[in-house]
């Protein structure tokens, strides 16, 4: 996987974020991992708004998105990204505790690339994240320019 791909984790639960981070590293992912604790921060970064950090034009990004988050939830983040001409190129992988089929369907309709349920069983969780790492390594992620 190319180093210039940045992995964004939008996850309000610090523990989950840490476990995802740890296991991605264990799976051999060495890309930069940027973590946001709510949807708003992620949107600000991607749409380059507000006082926080902004994405760099021309870089490639991959978004691991939780659904249930304060301020702006993951569904809304997904909707806004997919509504944007440029940002819609960013692959979005939903990583959530919700396995409600209707929720899954909804996200796919909005255009998510993948949907991963966080199992409580840690072995499974580790497995899922490892597979996610493999997926990230082989996926072709387009660069996103500055106009959005």
């Amino acid at each position, binding site marked *: 996987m190319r180093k210039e791909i940045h992995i964004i984790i939008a996850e309000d639960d610090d523990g989950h974020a840490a*476990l995802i981070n*740890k296991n991605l590293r264990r799976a051999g992912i060495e890309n930069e991992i940027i973590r946001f604790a709510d949807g708003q921060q992620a949107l600000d970064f991607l749409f380059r708004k507000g006082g926080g950090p902004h994405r760099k034009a021309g870089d490639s990004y991959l978004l691991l998105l939780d659904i249930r988050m304060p301020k702006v939830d993951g569904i809304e983040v997904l909707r806004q990204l997919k509504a944007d001409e440029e940002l819609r190129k960013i692959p979005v992988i939903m990583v959530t505790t919700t396995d*409600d089929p209707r929720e899954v369907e909804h996200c796919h309709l909005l255009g998510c690339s993948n949907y991963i349920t966080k199992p*409580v069983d840690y072995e499974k969780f580790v497995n899922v994240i490892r597979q996610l790492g493999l997926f990230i390594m082989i996926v072709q992620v387009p660069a996103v320019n500055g106009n959005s």
Partner: protein
Amino acid sequence: MKTSQKIMAGFLVTLTLTAALAFYADFASRRSLEEAIGHESLILAQETMKRIDLAIHDKIMYVWDNAEQAWILSHIVKSNQSFAELDSPEDFMDRIDREWTSSPQDTLSPLLLELQDNELSRALRQQFINSLLKKYGYSPFPELFVTNRYGAVIATTGRTNSYRQDKKSWWQTAREQGISLEDIAYDAGSDSYGIAVALRLDDSDGNFLGVVKAIVNVGPIVKTAEIATSRYQSARTRLLTRDGKIIFRSRPYRFLQDFSDVTLINRLEGGEGFFVGNEQNVQRFYSYVRSKGKDRHYPGFGWILLVSNDADEVLASAEVLRTRIAVVSILLIMAGIIFALFLSMTINRSLGVLSAGAERIGGGDLDFRMELAGDDEFGQVAGTFNAMVRNLQEITASRDELNAEIDKRNMAEKALRESEKRFRATFEQAAVGIALVSPRGGWLRVNRKLCAIVGYPEDKLRQLTFQDITHPDDLDTDLDFYRQVLAGEISTYSLEKRYIRLDGSPVWINLTVSLVRDDDGTPAYFISIIEDIDQRKNTELERDRLSLELNKKNHELEQIIYVTSHDLRSPLVNVQGFSKELSADIKNLLSLWQNTGIPAAIRNQAEPLLHQDIPESLQFIEKGIARMDDLLNGLLRLSRLGRASLTLEECDMNRLLADIVATMDFQIKEAGVQVEVSDLPTCRGDRDQLNQLFSNLLGNALKYLDPGRPGRININGVKEKDRSVYCVSDNGIGIAREHQGKIFEIFHRLNPAESEGDGLGLAIVNRILDRLDGKIWVASEEGRGSSFYVSLPGWKGGNRA
């Protein structure tokens, strides 16, 4: 009545009167005949009775006249004198009397013999018997005797029954009143029927000397009664005593026998009379007369002379007359009728021409003229009539027209009034509100019911429009329809809406409106029917509100379960993840542990912690997490059930159960259970939900088997009316009675230690059945097994595969 009928009737009345007269004449003549015959025979009877009385009187007088002769009296005086010399005439008389009465009947005592043969007796016999025998051939006095003033018999022509007579009532009566008469009786002394006559004998100074008693033989006298017998063959004569004993009758009889016909006796009232009576079912005319006597010496015994004649015989001549009158009357009537018929037919013919003509002219044919020749009144009438018709012809035309018009209007008005009356009654008394509404919406007419519904008095309501009292929220809908009706797009409409009552409260009504148009199509008025549906509507609204609220609450509840389950999951992921991380870290620590130079004492203390205590704690944490995850998954499944959409269709339960059994084949084989599925009826339900339901039931049956015996599970079903009932029964451990109510509760587990599961199986089953209009109940015995019954709606299309 037609003229001919009147003529006939007149004749009939006359003839009827004639007949009545004839019958009256017959009746009256019969009556007078009866009376005449009655009188005739009464007179005869009177004369006869008079004659009998006279004859008896003669005999009494004869005795009296002949007994008061001086030589007889001197005998008595002599006897009185000799008795007066006796010390006690009483004792003497008693002695003689005893001697007299004690002697036998057929022998004559010396005293009697002497008495019979003394001078006086001989003289009396000569005077009263022998001389009369010579004269008449019989003696009217069969016995005669004389007593002195003391009552002793001093002379007798026959055989007196005793010597002393002064104690006898006739003797005393004669002494006191001068005469004693005894009614006819049998006299043994003379062996004849006669009347007894006792007379007082006085001297010339009126001093009492003695008594003479004579039996008068009345046989020949009473025979004279026969004189009263009339010339009719059927005539009968009877002479009766006062108390109804027969003295004489014209047919054979026994003397003094009782006259048996009491009813006849009872009719013989007063001194005389005549009447019509019946005897042995034959009508007879009776005349009777009672004996009146002659004078104070002989006042009569009250004898009755009864004369009767057979009515038929007496009236035979009257009968002939009657028949003649009847025949003549009938002939007269028949002749009258025939004449009346002829007369009425003649007149009828003329009248028929007149009447038919008049009828034809009356019927409107004024061109008709009567053809009736003749110089009688009918001809004249016809001529006059024809002239009149010509005049009438001229004035009738216009008048007829006018009359017809007036009649037509009257009829129409009457019909209108009645229709109006009916309408008013219907309108006012209808149980629904009715109103006539102007095309602009004003209330033209309203009935009582409508006023009651909207709470307005009639006069007030009629100043308003329907728009005024319609609820603002409902007005647009109503106006929309109203415009459509006016525009002719629809003819009627009906809607449920609210009025605002006078007191400001809304009332729900059902309104039906139709428009009445004039002949030229202009809207005239609306007819509105207003039905009070306030109560129903409010109930409906309340029901809808409650139903909505219930749905909302249900939805909320499911949302809560859903959200909670997810939110609880997030921390669980952390707990699980980091406890795993921790155990991994411990392992790392242990491997580091070996290489460092940690003092043995510390190492010995810390090693049990690292090897045992911490891993054990982590193990408990993980177990707790696994259990909690199960619960959350169960809750999520349960909440999802309520949100899953249903596809209700006919379910082939045989196939469904076969699928389930196939899916669970591994577990079934593992448990060594024999599962039998009978032929099952179809039902109406959602395939997926039913699959879940029966999987849970079968899963439960497998879960709670009794390890002590080979497991057996039976699944069968029956159709009951419009439902299908299925049963899943096992021979497992069963459910204690006290637990049977709780098994359908959420998270309830019978035997948490010995079985796995989330405690939601039956709760899910219950939830599914709630949504499928199904029911479940259990029959179970602890240690024997359980049977779960599931009732589902049957498929209406029948038992289709």
